C-alpha cells in the first residue's frame, strides 16, 4: 500500500471514503429495518436498536436515543419512516451537542501560550505516535515551529518510530533513548522548546492500559513535571482512541481523564470497517470534545472532527 500511495490521494476524498462505510452500513441497515412500513412501530425500534448497537454506540446511549424517539412518536402520534432519519439525526446531534459547547475545531495555539504544549496519551496500539506525526505535519504546514518529545521510552523502538516521523515532517525531536525516565524527557523537551522559541510541543507517551495504577500514576507525574518549565503546561492532553474499540473506550476516557485531565479526543483507524459509534457514547458521557479523526496512515490522514458533518454523513440519504 504504502503510505506514499495513499498519501497522494486527495484528503477530502479519503475522509468521505472513510465515513462512507459508516454511512452506507448504518443507512442500509436502517432502510432494511423500515422497509415496507409506514410508521415507526416496536419492530422498527428494535431494528434501530440493532443498528445502533452494531455500530458500537453502546446499550445505555442506544436506550437513551430510543427513549427519545419513542417519546416523540408518542407525542407526534403518527410518525412516518421517512421522518425517522431526520429525527434520529437530530437526536444524535443533540447528544453530541449537549456535551460539546460550540463546534469542535482543531487545536489553536494562543499567542500568549508559547510554546503550546500538547501531551498525547492512550492505551497500547491506538496510534499515538502516528497521530503525533500527522499533527506535527499539520502544525508545520500552518507555519508553526514544532518540537517533538519522545517520552515513550518503554515500547521497543518507539523512539526510533518518532524519530522517523520527525525526519519525515522535518521537525526537531528531543529524546534520551529507550528506558530513559519519561518525565525527564518531557522536561528536556519543554526546556529545549522554550530555548528555541517553538510554537508547539508534542509529547509522545508510552501506551498503557488504563487499569494499571502505577503506569497511570507515572502519566500524572509526566504531566506534573511540565508545569515546572511552563506554568499550565501541558495546555492540552489528547487522548487517542482506536475507532474499532468497543465499550471499553468509555472506561479509557474515564481513567485517562482521572489521571491527566484529558482535554480532547482523537479517534483513529475509522477508515476501516469500524463504525466509530463509540464517539456518540463518549460524547454523551464526558464533556470532552472529539477534535480529530485518523483516516489512514499517511501524514495528511488526520481530519478535524466535525460532529455535524459526522452525523450528516451517517444519515445523508444518497
Amino acid at each position: 500500500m504504502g503510505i506514499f500511495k495513499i498519501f497522494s490521494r486527495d484528503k477530502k476524498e479519503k475522509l468521505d471514503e472513510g465515513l462512507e462505510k459508516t454511512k452506507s452500513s448504518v443507512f442500509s441497515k436502517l432502510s432494511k429495518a423500515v422497509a415496507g412500513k409506514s410508521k415507526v412501530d416496536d419492530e422498527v425500534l428494535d431494528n434501530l436498536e440493532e443498528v445502533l448497537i452494531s455500530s458500537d454506540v453502546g446499550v445505555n446511549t442506544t436506550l437513551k436515543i430510543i427513549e427519545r424517539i419513542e417519546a416523540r412518536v408518542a407525542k407526534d402520534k403518527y410518525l412516518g419512516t421517512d421522518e425517522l432519519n431526520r429525527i434520529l439525526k437530530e437526536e444524535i446531534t443533540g447528544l453530541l451537542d449537549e456535551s460539546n459547547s460550540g463546534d469542535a475545531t482543531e487545536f489553536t495555539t494562543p499567542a500568549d501560550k508559547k510554546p503550546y504544549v500538547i501531551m498525547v496519551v492512550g492505551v497500547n496500539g491506538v496510534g499515538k505516535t502516528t497521530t503525533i506525526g500527522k499533527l506535527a505535519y499539520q502544525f508545520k504546514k500552518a507555519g508553526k515551529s514544532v518540537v517533538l518529545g519522545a517520552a515513550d521510552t518503554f515500547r521497543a523502538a518507539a523512539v526510533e518510530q518518532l524519530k522517523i516521523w520527525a525526519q519525515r515532517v522535518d521537525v526537531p525531536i528531543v529524546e534520551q533513548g529507550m528506558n530513559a525516565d519519561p518525565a525527564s524527557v518531557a522536561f528536556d523537551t519543554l526546556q529545549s522548546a522554550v530555548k528555541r522559541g517553538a510554537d508547539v510541543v508534542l509529547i509522545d507517551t508510552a501506551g498503557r492500559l488504563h487499569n494499571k495504577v502505577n503506569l497511570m500514576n507515572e502519566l500524572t507525574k509526566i504531566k506534573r513535571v511540565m508545569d515546572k518549565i511552563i506554568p499550565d503546561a501541558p495546555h492540552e492532553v489528547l487522548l487517542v482512541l482506536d475507532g474499532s474499540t468497543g465499550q471499553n473506550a468509555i472506561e479509557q476516557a474515564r481513567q485517562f481523564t482521572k489521571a491527566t485531565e484529558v482535554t480532547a479526543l482523537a479517534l483513529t483507524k475509522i477508515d476501516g470497517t469500524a463504525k466509530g459509534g463509540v464517539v456518540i457514547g463518549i460524547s454523551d458521557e464526558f464533556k470532552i470534545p472529539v477534535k480529530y479523526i485518523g483516516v489512514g496512515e499517511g501524514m495528511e490522514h488526520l481530519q478535524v472532527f466535525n460532529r455535524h458533518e459526522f452525523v450528516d454523513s451517517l444519515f445523508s440519504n444518497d
Partner: protein
Amino acid sequence: MFDNLTDKFDRAFKVLKGQGQITEVNVAETLKEVRRALLDADVNFKTAKDFTNQIKEKALGRDVLTAVKPGQLLVKIVQEELAELMGGEQEDVDLKGNPAIILMSGLQGSGKTTFSGKLANYLKTKKGKKPLLVACDIYRPAAIDQLHVVGDQIGVEVFSNRDEKDPVKISQAAIQYARSNGHNVVIVDTAGRLAIDEQMMNEITAVKRAINPSETLFVVDAMTGQDAVNTAKAFNERLNFDGVVLTKLDGDTRGGAAISIKSVVNKPIKFIGTGEKMEAIDLFYPKRMADRILGMGDVVSLVERAQENYDEEKARKLHKKIAKNEFSFDDFLDQIQQIKKMGNMKDLMGMIPGMGKAVKNLDIDDDAFKGIESIIYSMTPEERNDHKILNGSRRKRIANGSGASLQDVNKLVKQFEETRKMMQLMSNKKNMANMMRQMGGMKGMPGM
C-alpha cells in the same frame, strides 16, 4: 479479565435467586439482563441474541427434570454454553514441517509484533524450539527495529532485509536462512492492515501462498467492539487462518470479542496476551474462561503457574529448615521472589475464585512486596538469620533504613513469627487439624 461481565451476571442472577422454578416469565427477565451484559461486553449483537435464545431453550427444557434452584441451574447452563460458544477444548499451535512456519496477521496496533516475540519466547523456553523471527512489516516506521529489540530481549534471532520492499521475497529468503541455520520454527511478523485495504490483503495472501505456513494466526485486540466480527470474517475469507490470538486481556475490557469471533469464523482462540512482558502469554482455555466470566475463578491456571515456577530442590531444603524451626527472613525473602516470579499479583489473585471482584479496584501491582522487601533488606545478615535479636533500637534503625514506620517493622516481625509458627505446625502432620483451626484467624500480609 472478565470481571465486568461477571459483575453483570452476578446482578442478572440475583433476579432469579429465591425463586423456586424457571418459568417463561422469570427466565425472560434474567435473560434480558444476560443479553444486555453480553452487549455491554462487546459481544456481537447477533451472537448475543442467539446465545440467550439457546439458554432459554435449555433452561426451560431442563427445568422439569431437575430439582436444583433456578439460579444454580441457569448459572450452570450459561457456563456450559459460554464455554461451548468460545470453542470446546483448548487447541495448541500446529508445528508440523521443518521449519514449521507461523504467519501473523491482523489490524494495526493489535499487538502482532509483541505477540510474535512472546510466541517465539514460548516456543523457545517451553517447547525447546529454535525460532527465527522475520520482519515483514516494511511500512510502519521503525517496525523492523521493534522486532529486533524484542528479539534481543528474548535471545531469538531476527531476520530482516531493509533494502527489500517485497514481503514475499523477505519471507522466502527467511525460510531459506532458517533451513541453513538450523531454525525449526519461523515466525513471520507482518504489517498491520485493514480488511478493506485490497492491496494490503492481496499482499498477505501472496505471502501465505508463497510460504505455505502450518499455522496462520489472526491477532485481535480484546478491546475490539462490534467490528471484531467483520474483521475476523474478512481476514478469514482471505487467509483461512487457523487460530485467533486475543491480546491486551490484562486490561479491564469485558472481552466479548472472544465470544463472538469463535462463533462467527469457527476458528479456535489459541493464545491470549496478558501483559507487556515477554512471558505474558497464555494458552486459551474456553472452559476456564467461561468459569472466569461466571466468577468461578481460574484455579487450574493458578496451580499450573505455581508448578512452573516451583523449584523442588529449594523446596526440599526449605522443608528441612522449617522442620528444624530455622526458617529465617532470608528464606522469607526467597519465598517472596518465588511468588513474584509467578507473575502479576493482581492477575494471580484474580484467578482465585471469588477474588475477581475483590481485587478489581485494588491497587495491587508487581511492587506489592516492595515494603516488606525493603524492611528485610535493611536488616543485617545476623538479624535476618535470627529474628529474636530484633530489639527496640535495632527495629528503629531498620525503620529508618527502609523508610518504613516503626509500626510497619513491628507488624512484619510479628507476622513473620506467626508464619513461622504456622509452618512449624504444618510440617508436623499431627498438627494438621490444629493448623486448619488456626487458619481462620490468619491475617493478610502488610502491603497487600
